[in-house]
């Protein structure tokens, strides 16, 4: 597992940044600087090798511009006062550190409100009809792909500048689906607010519910019972399997490998049905809540065990066939190449990062819930292409099956509580996290008097999409669908 975080070094960090250390939960180092020193501190953290996760404003009255970094198995929260009379720094960090760019623009546009400069293109209010032209040359044109896409896909727009074959420039435009869901949390009690968390990105409901619950539990100093942690891990691993199988089925569809597509759709549907039998909901909703889980599964553990066995057997055969079909693998090998340096520069996470040789996984970096006991094997490939991203998913499918089986054994052997009560009128704020199928997910929750206030969600999809713009170094237009599916992202979580 992770080494003990070098506390001395992190203390030194506070000194070097000239920042005050504020109390916070474990694995969350809270630093506070003066507003004019904020940019300098961010630069130092960048040099120290920190990965920026997100940037947001905490709620009034003590409104703080907060940047969250992941550094040596810890979160570092860097805050500076940002009240209306101390404006946000005008120099944009995003201009030299692309990881931060979208989060920073979102923050600035929100802070400016309707006073945003007219005529300037707002990231958070996209216009489907507006075309961008940045590449000039003979016969170069812009294809606006989306927001109404071909097939049943979520709304997002890609502005593809192409001369017909090569893709010299691609620009992803998210936020067509921004429905202001972060504001829907406000004023609810944590056990009701978790229903909102489940609906931020529906295909990763369990990951969002568990990250939100994790944040609430950390803010209030509550530890869920061991049996509840096991159930959560099982639900999250089943969800990961469904998402990965979905990606693989879509890749098969793109190569017109229809039997393969059907086979992986069957496996995915089986996982969905298993989840429906376990929880009453095909997406595992309504079971995870702050403090634990609502109850044991509807069906018995033996039945779950048998279903997992059957799934593993079928998956092994389909995987062998899939990886042995040249018409499939030829399209994936070398496609959508992103090298490790680029991944690090963009702070990408999840299977996308792990396919470019970066061993980053929240379950391993900062083990939460049951994962410090389960010991996750992080699946890493180095090739950085679409094939590597699919291979990472195949590897993680096996790993998820292994973890699920281990959890089922734990649940069989262990009786106990499923839920602990939260302290009434609890007040506090904390980050919670989870490794969603798309990558590391971070949720910031503020609680006052037992009611949820501001919530900020840093979805893995938003960060990975910034990298997607650069995934076409030597690919042509017809490779678009392969590369997009190999990223396996969901706009709902990114746009919120």
């Amino acid at each position: 597992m992770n080494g003990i975080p070098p506390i001395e070094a992190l203390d030194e960090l506070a000194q070097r940044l000239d920042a005050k250390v504020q109390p916070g939960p474990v694995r969350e180092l809270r630093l506070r600087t003066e507003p004019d020193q904020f940019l300098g501190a961010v630069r130092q953290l960048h040099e120290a090798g920190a990965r920026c996760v997100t940037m947001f404003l905490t709620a009034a009255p003590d409104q703080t511009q907060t940047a969250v970094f992941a550094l040596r198995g810890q979160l570092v929260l860097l805050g500076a006062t940002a009240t209306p009379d101390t404006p946000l720094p005008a120099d944009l960090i995003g201009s030299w550190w692309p990881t931060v760019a979208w989060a920073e623009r979102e923050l600035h546009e929100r802070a400016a409100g309707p006073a945003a400069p007219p005529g300037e293109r707002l990231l958070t209010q996209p216009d489907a009809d507006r075309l961008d032209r940045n590449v000039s040359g003979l016969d170069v044109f812009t294809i606006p792909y989306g927001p109404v896409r071909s097939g049943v896909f979520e709304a997002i727009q890609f502005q593809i500048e192409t001369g017909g074959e090569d893709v010299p420039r691609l620009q992803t435009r998210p936020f067509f689906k921004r429905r202001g869901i972060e504001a829907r949390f406000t004023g609810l009690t944590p056990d009701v607010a978790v229903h909102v968390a489940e609906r931020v990105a529906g295909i990763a409901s369990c990951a969002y519910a568990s990250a939100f619950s994790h944040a609430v539990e950390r803010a209030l100093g509550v530890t869920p019972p061991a049996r509840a942690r096991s159930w959560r891990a099982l639900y999250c691993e089943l969800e990961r399997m469904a998402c990965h199988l979905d990606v693989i089925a879509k890749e098969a569809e793109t190569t017109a490998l229809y039997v393969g597509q059907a086979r992986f759709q069957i496996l995915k549907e089986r996982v969905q049905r298993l989840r429906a039998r376990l929880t009453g909901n095909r997406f595992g909703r309504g079971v995870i809540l702050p403090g634990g889980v609502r109850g044991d599964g509807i069906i018995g553990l033996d039945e779950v065990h048998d279903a997992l066995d059957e799934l593993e057997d079928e998956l092994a055969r389909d995987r062998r066939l899939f990886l042995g079909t040249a018409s499939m693998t030829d399209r994936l090998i070398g496609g959508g190449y992103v090298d490790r340096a680029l991944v690090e520069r963009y702070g990408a996470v999840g299977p996308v990062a792990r396919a470019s040789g970066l061993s980053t996984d929240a379950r391993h970096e900062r083990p939460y819930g049951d994962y410090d006991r389960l010991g996750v094997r992080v699946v890493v490939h180095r090739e950085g292409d679409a094939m590597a991203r699919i291979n990472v998913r195949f590897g993680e499918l096996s790993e998820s099956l292994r973890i699920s089986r281990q959890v089922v054994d734990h649940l069989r052997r262990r009786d106990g509580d499923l839920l602990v009560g939260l302290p009434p009128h609890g007040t506090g704020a904390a980050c919670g996290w989870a490794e969603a199928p798309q990558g590391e997910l971070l949720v910031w929750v503020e609680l006052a008097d037992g009611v949820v206030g501001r919530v900020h969600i840093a979805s893995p999809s938003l960060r990975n999409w910034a990298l997607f713009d650069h995934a076409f170094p030597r690919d042509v237009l017809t490779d678009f669908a392969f590369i997009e599916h190999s990223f396996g992202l969901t706009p709902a979580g990114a746009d919120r």
Partner: protein
Amino acid sequence: MLEWILRGLHKRRITTRYPRAPEPPPVGFHGRVDVLRPTAAAPQLADVCPTGAITVDDKGELRLDRARCILCGECVRSAPDRFAFGSSYETASRSRERLVVGHLGDEHIDAVRQTLGARAAGLRKSIHVRHIDCGSDGSEEWEIQALWNPYYDIQRLGFFLTNSPRHADLLLVTGPVTEPMRKPLERTWQVMPEPKALVAVGTDACAGGLHPPDGITAGGVDQVLAVDVYVPGSPPAPIAIMHALLLATGLLTAEEVAA
């Protein structure tokens, strides 16, 4: 390739026979919330619902608007004598009012259901379906896609996905309609040829769900365009959407006859 074909043939039939034969949901499936006792309710009961789907009028009459219900189960847990999860797939309705249950019961919806099998058997046409996402949480898309997987295989009933709205007979809309998606939605509907039908898929699309009409979202598709069939659910299961498509096609043929 041969190996794939053999692998495909190796399996026995897994496709559902719905709607010719009923497809029972798994035990304990949360398909909808039923009102068990609609009379003499305390007004505080309305407060347990995070989306305002429950109302109690001044006579103590309890009503549940399924179009607003996200199936979170808060009401079932706080008043198990009045509410219960029903494990049904067939939740779609041709009108918004029929989704309000409690004061009428489900009998009239059952009547629609009974005529359904006969109508589907007579379906000979090919119906082309187009989908547009107007701010869903992403799960509705999975359930719509699932209709074309081997378990549901809706092509056997004559439904095909089409990429162009100009070829489409049915439009499936998900999400509460966010501001940037309003114009694309209107234009997509405009270019579809007559006769056509619009299906709102999911609670968000039916009446906004968690999202009120606040300028960021329209709070439901019917705030923008007329909806022909509502499928509540968060998200509705594939069979629920299939049921809705069959309802909608009944509508299509009726219009064709009139034309």
